[in-house]
């Protein structure tokens, strides 16, 4: 009874924030499109789901989103390991300032930071200006609205989610483990691959998923930095909602994305239970 009372606010919150929106999406996905506000009338129609399966466009958008999320998460891990190793390697009193530096970009608005990337990468931007000034390029290079610009923005936005779990795992390891490996004849690279990496693999997986899960639904970064052909699910969703005003189809798309992400979310929860 006491337990139930204590948990009541949590359940209320979950109901309001998770269950209710999903329920609304489900109702919307089965509704009938109509001209009006809202642009549907209630019903039981499967056309939106049939459309998802029949029109290859949506499956491709889902795949593109998963590919972008996986690439972003992979790149984040590659960059996160040296950062986390560096942060774990310094004296404990320097760790908090370094952690603050890592989070520093988050003190400015998300869209503002994307604006900075645009300023750097556009044809008259800083990078092109420098390249031409140094005589490396004659005409401005197309940097903005490319796969690279999109990935840079994605990695920049999600990197801390990969660094934090790895950093936490590293500082929990007995530093004598690295010394023991070196003492037994392992050079630094060998120490990393035979001791550090295997012992932080669960944390790396957690970091990967922490980036992958939100990145799969990302819409702003591909929209502002990516090429037009990068039709990831987030963008398609937005277009269906706000340009085509086909809310049932958009709701069905959102449910499909959610269903796809349940597997990695479950996996992440299992990692958490194991740690």
């Amino acid at each position, binding site marked *: 009874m006491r337990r139930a009372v204590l948990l009541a606010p949590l359940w209320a919150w979950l109901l309001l924030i998770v269950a209710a929106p999903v329920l609304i999406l489900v109702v919307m996905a089965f509704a009938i499109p109509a001209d009006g506000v809202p642009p549907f009338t209630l019903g039981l129609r499967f056309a939106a789901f049939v459309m998802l399966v029949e029109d290859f466009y949506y499956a491709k958008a889902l795949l593109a989103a998963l590919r972008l999320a996986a690439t972003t998460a992979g790149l984040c891990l590659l960059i996160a390991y040296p950062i986390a190793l560096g942060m774990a390697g310094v004296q404990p009193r320097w760790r908090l300032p370094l952690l603050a530096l890592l989070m520093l970009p988050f003190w400015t608005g998300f869209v503002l930071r994307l604006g900075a990337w645009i300023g750097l990468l556009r044809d008259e931007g800083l990078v092109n200006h420098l390249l031409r000034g140094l005589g490396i390029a004659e005409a401005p290079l197309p940097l903005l609205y490319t796969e690279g610009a999109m990935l840079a923005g994605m990695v920049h936005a999600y990197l801390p989610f990969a660094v934090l779990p790895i950093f936490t795992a590293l500082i929990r390891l007995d530093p004598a483990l690295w010394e023991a490996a*070196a003492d037994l*004849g392992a050079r630094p690279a060998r120490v990393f691959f035979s001791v550090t990496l295997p012992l932080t693999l669960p944390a790396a997986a957690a970091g990967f998923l922490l980036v992958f899960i939100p990145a799969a639904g990302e819409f702003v970064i591909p929209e502002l930095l990516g090429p037009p052909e990068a039709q990831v699910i987030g963008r398609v969703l937005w277009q269906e909602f706000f340009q085509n005003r086909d809310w049932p189809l958009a709701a069905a798309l959102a449910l499909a994305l959610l269903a796809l992400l349940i597997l990695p979310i479950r996996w992440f929860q299992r990692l958490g239970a194991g740690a």
Partner: protein
Amino acid sequence: MLIATALEKRFGPVQALAKLDLAINAGEFFALLGGSGSGKSTLLRMLAGFEAPDAGALTLDGQDLLPVPPWARPINMMFQSYALFPHMNVAENIAYGLKRAGVAAQERRSRIAVALDLVGLQGLEARKPQQLSGGQKQRVALARSVVMGPRLLLLDEPMAALDAGLRERTGLELRVLQRKTGAAFIMVTHDQQEALALADRIAVLEAGRVAQIGPPQEVYARPATRFVARFLGAANVLEGRMQDGGFESAEAGGVIASGLPAETIAIALRAEQIRLTGAAEAPCTTGILEDVAYRGDDWLLIIRIQGGARLRVVHNAPPPAPGSVVGVAWGAAAVVPLFA
């Protein structure tokens, strides 16, 4: 074999090693004894290659060790935390160094078997470190370094994490292992009993320097300084000075010894060489029996003598009641003059 010359190391304001000199012979069991902050751990880590000295030289059989990184030194270390790789089983842990040295799989297997046999852990090859007891972990850590066949094995507080009951046996086994392998063992410890019991020679470290070095019996019987006498724990130290051929100590209430060198500034008196005097015997001094602790074989008495110093006395018969006035005496041979 191993020669350290004028090693210095400073961590910020802390002088960890101050012009430390040390020579260690091949095949000896050597103990570095000292309290926390004495520099014993820094020295051990320097031998393994994890710390570089600010100044000084370090050679092993004539070869300069300082430019050699830890992974290339012919020295192995057993860590206080054991540092067993938690993702590898016992055999994989022991195989780790052999693989790095490029030992072929077949030879690896036979050497692992020999090492496990040496530490008495046959049959546990497939266990993970989490499935081992503290004593078993210690043996795996030992086997993992011994299997490399080092000329010099470093042991960082090898028995600190063991139960008291296991310590004595493990210590003796450690010495058997040292004899069998013929390697020189350097053991860091803060436990004087452990050092006295196991080592061929002991160096007592104080504030980054060697305060005294020698065989256990010598260091115990003839401490060179007040610090060593106090650290070894068995002796009472009374401060004073020589005057007209007698050693006069204010804290002992007057002249308590004679015939010592003129530069004597303190004396050490071993607790087991002080006796309570009977009615017929003239005491060296008298005092009040403050406290009595029964220790099984004997009693430890705390006696506050005239002048205020407290003497620790080991007594072999039921002692008088606390509060009694007692006389204490010692032979002239029991007095060890200290000059520093």
